[in-house]
């Protein structure tokens, strides 16, 4: 591996936050490299339609939106490289990002690596993924026509998926470990009013079971401490996200959930390192806020590099 000539800024991640940042640093005439994992795009691609990004009154396909972000960033000079960051270290005045293919030296870094869906960690979850266990209702919902399906979780995403899945399934359980949802009210109302949906409050999953496909799950009511089997064809897990920060552990400060701690200018506790999007602690998990945070981070980088002279 060899380090190329240093960039002004390397942006790790090519979702909305990273590409918005790249647009701004590119326009600022900073030499900008964006590292994109083998699988581009980010969490946005797991939704079927983006209807809450301002400027598109009829909504837009996530794939199209991200393509537009990319074109716009490249138009102003950002270079997108396919590589995955493995670690990050300080070397003299530069940060060096160790990728799988080579090393990237930069005067400043923006971490925009996003987050991935969280697994439950119950027995057989991995083995039965694609055989009834899913993390993407948009993708896999249509396989469950007239089936019995459960959604695990109580946040916005879980309840959105639950309502969407009732288009296909015969019966839908929402399994939630607490006595109330934390999702916004309008989604709670839709779930509670839907005759196909039954909510199992105070319940957690112990295991998924089935040979060639999911047949049932074992559910434990934590309040009554009672365990029972629930026959199911499909299980959709929607319990939040884990930030992609393993490669910066010990280098920048993280909060208890592993998100990068940032201030109001998206600065981390290390000079020249900024973070934006789902990976940062101050950022709601929205495309529009990821874009805003990416822009803030880019402006901060600009200022920081000017201050160095």
């Amino acid at each position, binding site marked *: 591996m060899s380090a190329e000539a240093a960039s002004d800024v390397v942006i790790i991640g090519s979702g909305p936050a990273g590409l918005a940042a790249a647009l701004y640093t590119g326009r600022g005439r900073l030499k900008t490299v964006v590292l994109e994992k083998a*699988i581009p795009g980010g969490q946005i691609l797991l939704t079927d339609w983006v209807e809450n990004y301002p400027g598109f009154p009829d909504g837009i396909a996530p*794939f199209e939106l991200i393509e537009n972000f990319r074109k716009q960033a490249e138009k102003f000079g950002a270079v997108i490289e396919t590589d995955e960051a493995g670690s990050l270290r300080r070397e003299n005045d530069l940060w060096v990002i160790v990728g799988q293919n080579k090393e990237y030296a930069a005067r400043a870094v923006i971490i925009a690596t996003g987050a991935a869906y969280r697994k439950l960690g119950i027995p057989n979850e991995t083995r039965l993924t694609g055989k009834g266990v899913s993390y*993407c209702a948009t*993708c896999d919902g249509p*396989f469950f026509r007239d089936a019995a399906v459960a959604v695990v979780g109580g946040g916005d995403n879980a309840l959105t998926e639950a309502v969407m899945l009732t288009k296909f399934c015969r019966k839908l359980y929402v399994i939630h470990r607490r006595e109330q949802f934390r999702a916004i009210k309008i989604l709670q109302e839709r779930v509670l009013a839907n005759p196909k949906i039954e909510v199992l409050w105070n319940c957690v999953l112990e295991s998924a079971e089935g040979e060639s496909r999911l047949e049932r799950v074992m559910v434990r009511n934590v309040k009554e401490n009672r365990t029972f089997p629930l026959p199911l064809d499909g299980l959709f897990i929607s319990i939040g996200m884990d930030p992609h920060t393993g490669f910066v552990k010990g280098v920048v400060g993280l909060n208890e959930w592993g998100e990068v701690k940032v201030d109001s200018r998206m600065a981390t506790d290390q000079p020249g390192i900024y973070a934006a999007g789902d990976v940062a602690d101050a950022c709601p998990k929205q495309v529009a806020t990821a874009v805003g945070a990416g822009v803030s981070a880019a402006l901060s980088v600009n200022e920081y590099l000017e201050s160095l002279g």
Partner: protein
Amino acid sequence: MSPDILNVSDATFEEEVLKSPLPVLVDFWAVWCAPCLMIAAAVDEIAESHKEKLKVAKMNVDENMNTPAKYGIRGIPTLLLFKGGELKETMVGVQPKDKIIEVVAKHL
């Protein structure tokens, strides 16, 4: 889509996949599945780079229900690799291109 990729259906699956002299990688997908679009480019490239040794096919699960049901597919994208009419490998969800190549290469 790459010209090296063949669209298969329930009707042509046996002839094109199970009876194929070459190993066949089948990509089960649908238009409403964004992760399927995410791996489409990788599948295209593999079709191109491995065309002498591997046949690459796509099946739209909206238009073809029997074959996905037969192989117990309840999540997409799913990639299945067939050799000599037998199912050899199953990959569920988005995979990096190198990982797909690594799994496929064992059977070429």
